[in-house]
C-alpha cells in the first residue's frame, strides 16, 4: 500500500515539475522583455515616427498600421465567419457535403501562415491587382482568421439550448426568424469573445503580411486602403534582424508594445466572457 502511495507521490512530483518547466519560462520571458524594454517606453516612443534608420524615435506608424489591419481583418472575416457558422449549425443537413465543409475549416486552420502569405500575394496583390496594400493584407489575414471565428461562433450557437428553437418553430416562425430572435442574441457573447481572440492572433502575425502589405519604413500614415503600411510584428522582425547597431532597448520596447497590444485584446475577450456569464438567463 505504501509503495503505491510512494509511487503516486513521485509521479505527481514529476508531473508538477514538468508543468513548472512549462510555466516558469513563460513568466520569465515576459518579465525579461518587460524589464529590458520598459526603460525605452515613453509617450514619444508611442507617438512618434522612427528616425535614423529605426534606431531612434518612435513606432507610431507601426502601431497605427497594426490597428488598421486589425480593423480591416474584422470587417472581412467577421460577417463571413458568422454566416458560415450559422449555416453549419442551423441550416446544414448531416451529410457528406457538410462534413466536407467542416473538414475544410479544420484544414484552413492548419495551413502554415507563410502559405497564406504566398496565397495572399498571388491572389490579392497580383491577380486582383490590389498591389501590396492594406486591402491585400487585411484580406489575407481575414482568410487566416476565418477558422477561429467559425469555430467560436459554432460553439456559441451550439450552446444555445435546443428548446428555444423548438419553441420558435412550433409557433410558426421561419428558420431565419428563429435564428435571428431565439438563437443569435444568446450566442453573441461567445461570438464576441471568439472574435476578439482571433483578432489578437491576427495582430501578432508576420508571415501573412510579409509580401502583402508590410513596409519597411513608411513614416507617414496611410492615406488609402491601397497604401502599404508598417506593422508592429514586421517592425520587430526587421529591427532585430536587418538593422545593424540597433539599440536593443528599442527592440525590447517594440516587443513590449506588441505583447501589450495582444494581451490587452486577450484581456478584453476574457472580461467579456466573464461579464456575459453573469448575465446568463438560462
Amino acid at each position, binding site marked *: 500500500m505504501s509503495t503505491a502511495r510512494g509511487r503516486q507521490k513521485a509521479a505527481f512530483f514529476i508531473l508538477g515539475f514538468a508543468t513548472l518547466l512549462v510555466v516558469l519560462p513563460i513568466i520569465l520571458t515576459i518579465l525579461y522583455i518587460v524589464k529590458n524594454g520598459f526603460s525605452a517606453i515613453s509617450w514619444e516612443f508611442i507617438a512618434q515616427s522612427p528616425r535614423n534608420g529605426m534606431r531612434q524615435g518612435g513606432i507610431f506608424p507601426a502601431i497605427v498600421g497594426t490597428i488598421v489591419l486589425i480593423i480591416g481583418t474584422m470587417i472581412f472575416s467577421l460577417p463571413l465567419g458568422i454566416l458560415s457558422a450559422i449555416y453549419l449549425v442551423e441550416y446544414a*443537413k*448531416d451529410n457528406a457535403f457538410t462534413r466536407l465543409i467542416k473538414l475544410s475549416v479544420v484544414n484552413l486552420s492548419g495551413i502554415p501562415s507563410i502559405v497564406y502569405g504566398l496565397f495572399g500575394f498571388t491572389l490579392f496583390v497580383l491577380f486582383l491587382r490590389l498591389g501590396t496594400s492594406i486591402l491585400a493584407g487585411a484580406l489575407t489575414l481575414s482568410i487566416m482568421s476565418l477558422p477561429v471565428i467559425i469555430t467560436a461562433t459554432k460553439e456559441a450557437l451550439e450552446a444555445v439550448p435546443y*428548446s*428555444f*428553437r*423548438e*419553441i*420558435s*418553430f*412550433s*409557433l*410558426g*416562425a*421561419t428558420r431565419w*426568424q428563429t435564428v435571428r*430572435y*431565439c438563437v443569435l442574441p*444568446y450566442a453573441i457573447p461567445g461570438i464576441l469573445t471568439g472574435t476578439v481572440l482571433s483578432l489578437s492572433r491576427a495582430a501578432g502575425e508576420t508571415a501573412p503580411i510579409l509580401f502583402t502589405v508590410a513596409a519597411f519604413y513608411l513614416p507617414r500614415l496611410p492615406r488609402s486602403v491601397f497604401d502599404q503600411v508598417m506593422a508592429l510584428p514586421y517592425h520587430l522582425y526587421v529591427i532585430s534582424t536587418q538593422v545593424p547597431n540597433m539599440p536593443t532597448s528599442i527592440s525590447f520596447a517594440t516587443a513590449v508594445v506588441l505583447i501589450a497590444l495582444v494581451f490587452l485584446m486577450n484581456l478584453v475577450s476574457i472580461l467579456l466572457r466573464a461579464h456575459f456569464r453573469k448575465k446568463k*438567463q*438560462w
Partner: protein
Amino acid sequence: MVEQTIIKVADLNSYFGPLQVLKKINLEIYRNEILGIIGPANSGKTTFLRALNRLNNLNDTYSQTGEILFEGRDISGISDSILRKKIGIIFALPQVLPMSIYNNVAYGPKVHDVTGKKVVSEIVENALKKAYLWDEVKDRLDLPAPRLSGGQQQRLCIARTLAVEPEIILYDEPCSGLDPISTAKIEDAMQQLKEDYTQILVTNNTKQASRVSERCGFFLMGEMVEISETGALFTHPRDERTDDYISGRFG
C-alpha cells in the same frame, strides 16, 4: 349533433431512419372536441402529435407516408409557418424563452407580422386571460419568464400558443412535471378552451384522460389499437390489449 371533421389521418406511417414508429394510423378528429391519446411509453403518441404540425420534420432522419388532411386540404400543401400557426403545441416540460412574460407571449404575433403596440398588448392580455394566468402576472409582465413556477410557465406556454390564434391545440403530456393544483388549473383551462378550439391531449395518466377527454384513442407500439368515446373505452374496451393497459396489467 353532426360532428365536423377537422383533421383526417389516412394510412400514416412514420419512420425515423429505418425505424418505423407509426404503423398505418387512420383516424378523424372532430372540431371542438377534446381527444385523448393514451398508451405506454414509446408507442408513438408524441410522434403522432408532432406529425400533425410537421414538427417531426425538424429531425433530419424523419420520413412518413400516408396523408394528413386539415379541413380537407393535404397539409403538405400548407406552409410550415401557417400550419404551425393553426396547430399549436404544448410540450411536456414547460419551456419558455429567456425573455419577459410579455415578450414570450408577444413572440408568436411578432413572427406573424402583427404590429402595433396596442394591438399586441391586447392579444397578450387576452391570451393570458384565456390561459388563466392573467391575474397572477398582470402587474409584472416584465418579469423574466424563467422565474415563474412550473405550473405558471406551462400556462404561459398555453398563452403563447393562443396568441397566434390557432384552431387546434396539441398537448404532449403537459402536466407530467406539475403538482396536482397546477394540473387542475390546466385541465380547467382546457375545458374552457373547448368552446373555441379543438384539442388533442396525449397523456400517460389514464385518470386524466378519463377526466378531460370526450373520445380517447389507445396507442400501442406504433399502432392505434382502438378509438371510441372515453366512457366506453374505459368501461368496456373492444380490444384485450386496451383492457390490459387500462387495468394496469402492463404500463
